[in-house]
């Protein structure tokens, strides 16, 4: 046990509590962030870097254990091992493998990737971990780099704020009204066998894209969400609006990193969401009108009151006395049933914008590319994650279905505007 903290175990945070119960081979609730360096990765040095950096992040050096009322994260004394990358993207993290760690570090060629289970942290946390890992790796390689207060190095001590459950901190019991939601339209397609995930990334120029979205008076997330809705509309719904399944609203789920809205240093889950919502039963919906709609819906969804309401709604659920003191072996079924009834089918797709990734200037020479990906499951068949690093805006689609027409139309929108798009793919369709 570390001397600088009082305990060596952590309660799961509010959103982390639900994931262990509702995750399986198909709905894995994992996500990946990967970095491509300018040179081949040396596995032995990476292993050393990973072991070194875990001492800095006690929050991630944990395993999941069952308590009588809730699961919790307990200190994991076993060593952490990195592994070569397999074809699987965001596959389920089996706690029995890998010494019970809830995340994995992969290497392949020039790439270092971290895949993490959502109970542990969200995108914000994993980016911090990856930055530290890459820093440590490059430092061990002997390159002259400095952390510049951007990166947490293994020489610093963890601070208590990194462990806090910030949802609970900003919880407001008076502002927690539950707003019932309608089921969303679900993308149709042919599932890939063996829970495989297809991955297609498009690389665009950040500068060109910023010029484009600013000329429309939107943010990047708004632009992409509207475009995503439009793509789903043109490929799946238009001229078939009479079908019963097409009467459901198309909802693009956009996670919001609350660290940017509320002061918090936490490494754990601290995100909420906004959603677009439109029943697309007209044959003449245009992209321009979607821009307006999405802009308006996001502005409404991003107000402080609304964010706190959504946060408090979740925390109130956890604080419910009935649920709280229900023994865990009963509670897990309650959570499962509740999530199946409420949570699963409320989104058509999710679109994560991690934002701008910043490395210290001294490290920029060694880093070529950064990619993020989220899992695609049974209901959210096509998901998208976006990040930008220097002038590379990387839009990554993951899919659990064979069809790629959503990706195709999405990227063709930009090529039709005359922008240059470079594609990367894991070519899952070539191997099945």
């Amino acid at each position, binding site marked *: 046990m570390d001397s600088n903290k009082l305990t060596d175990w952590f309660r799961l945070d509010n959103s982390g509590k639900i994931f262990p119960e509702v995750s399986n081979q198909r709905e894995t609730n994992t996500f990946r962030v990967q970095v491509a360096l300018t040179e081949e990765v040396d596995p032995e040095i990476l292993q050393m870097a990973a072991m070194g950096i875990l001492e800095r992040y006690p929050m991630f050096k944990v395993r999941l254990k069952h308590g009588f009322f809730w699961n919790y994260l307990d200190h994991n004394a076993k060593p952490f091992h990195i592994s070569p990358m397999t074809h699987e*993207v965001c596959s389920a993290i089996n706690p029995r493998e890998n010494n019970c760690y809830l995340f994995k570090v992969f290497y*392949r060629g020039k790439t270092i990737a971290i895949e993490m289970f959502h109970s542990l942290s969200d995108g914000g946390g994993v980016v911090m971990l990856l930055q530290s890992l890459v820093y440590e790796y490059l430092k061990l390689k002997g390159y002259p780099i400095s952390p510049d207060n951007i990166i947490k190095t293994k020489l610093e001590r963890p601070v208590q704020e990194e462990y806090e459950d910030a949802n609970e901190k900003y919880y407001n019991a008076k502002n927690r009204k539950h707003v019932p939601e309608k089921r969303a339209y679900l993308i149709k397609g042919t599932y890939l066998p063996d829970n495989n995930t297809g991955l297609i990334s498009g690389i665009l120029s950040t500068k060109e894209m910023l010029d484009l979205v600013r000329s429309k008076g939107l943010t990047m997330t708004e632009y992409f969400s509207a475009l995503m809705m439009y793509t789903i509309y043109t490929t799946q719904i238009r001229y078939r609006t009479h079908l019963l399944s097409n009467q459901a609203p198309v909802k693009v789920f956009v996670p919001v990193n609350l660290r940017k809205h509320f002061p918090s240093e936490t490494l754990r889950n601290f995100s909420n969401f906004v959603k677009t919502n439109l029943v697309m039963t007209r044959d003449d919906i245009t992209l321009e009108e979607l821009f307006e709609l999405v802009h308006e819906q996001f502005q409404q969804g991003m107000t402080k009151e609304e964010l706190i309401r959504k946060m408090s709604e979740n925390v109130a659920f956890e604080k419910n006395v009935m649920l709280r003191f229900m023994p865990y072996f009963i509670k897990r079924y309650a959570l499962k049933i509740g999530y199946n009834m409420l949570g699963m089918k409320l989104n058509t797709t999710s679109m994560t914008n991690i934002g701008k990734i910043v490395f210290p200037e001294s490290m920029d020479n060694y880093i070529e590319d950064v990619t993020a990906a989220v899992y695609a499951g049974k209901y959210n068949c096509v998901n998208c994650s976006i990040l930008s690093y220097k002038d590379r805006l990387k839009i990554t689609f993951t899919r659990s279905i064979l069809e790629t027409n959503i990706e195709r139309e999405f990227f063709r929108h930009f090529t039709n505007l005359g922008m240059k798009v470079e594609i990367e793919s894991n070519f899952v369709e070539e191997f099945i």
Partner: protein
Amino acid sequence: MKRCDKCNIVIETKQQYCPLCHQVLTGETDEDFKEVYPEYVSLRRMVLPTTKKALMFLTLISILILGTINWLYFDGRYWSLIPIGAIAYFWFMLRIGILSKRNIAGRLGLATIFMIVFLILIDYSEYNVHNGWSTNYLMPLLLMSCNLAISMIMWIKRLNYRDYIFYLLVIIIFSIVPLILAATKVLTVAWPSIASFGVAIFILLFIVFFFPKSIREEIKKRFHA
């Protein structure tokens, strides 16, 4: 760099088709280029080994035959429960006792409890001659030996004793069951239950006196609401 003139995109790959529209790509890629993502290798195909399949098949057939014979020639005794229980115990020991990666204290605890259930089953399926040997002697004595075994393991493998404390606590709580049964005169012989409970209390007091912090931490961890 290859390109797809239909989608108007460029791509660096050795594959021949555009991932978006599956049309043939034009252009050449660098010979040394290595794909960013690895090739598909089937990893998760679940094929059971033939021995395991055969054993499972045999198990199922035996259970069906035993059940049928017992039912056809029924004389008031459910004797088929004994061999069926034995088969179940075999699978249980294989799965949880030997192949499981659970920690040793947990395995011991589970194996003990299952053993007790199995023995009570044998005892009670002979309804004529039932004299309560399983509940009178075996239940308390098995719990006692389990208690001692876990304590010994904790004593020897000092490193991770905090992991075992929880299982020890569970077994100690279970040791109260025979005592209650003895007190309510369900059991005819009281001394094994009392001895078992005595050992449990001894171990508990020992931990409370010598490792008060670990036990407090462990209880806090396991029972936070």
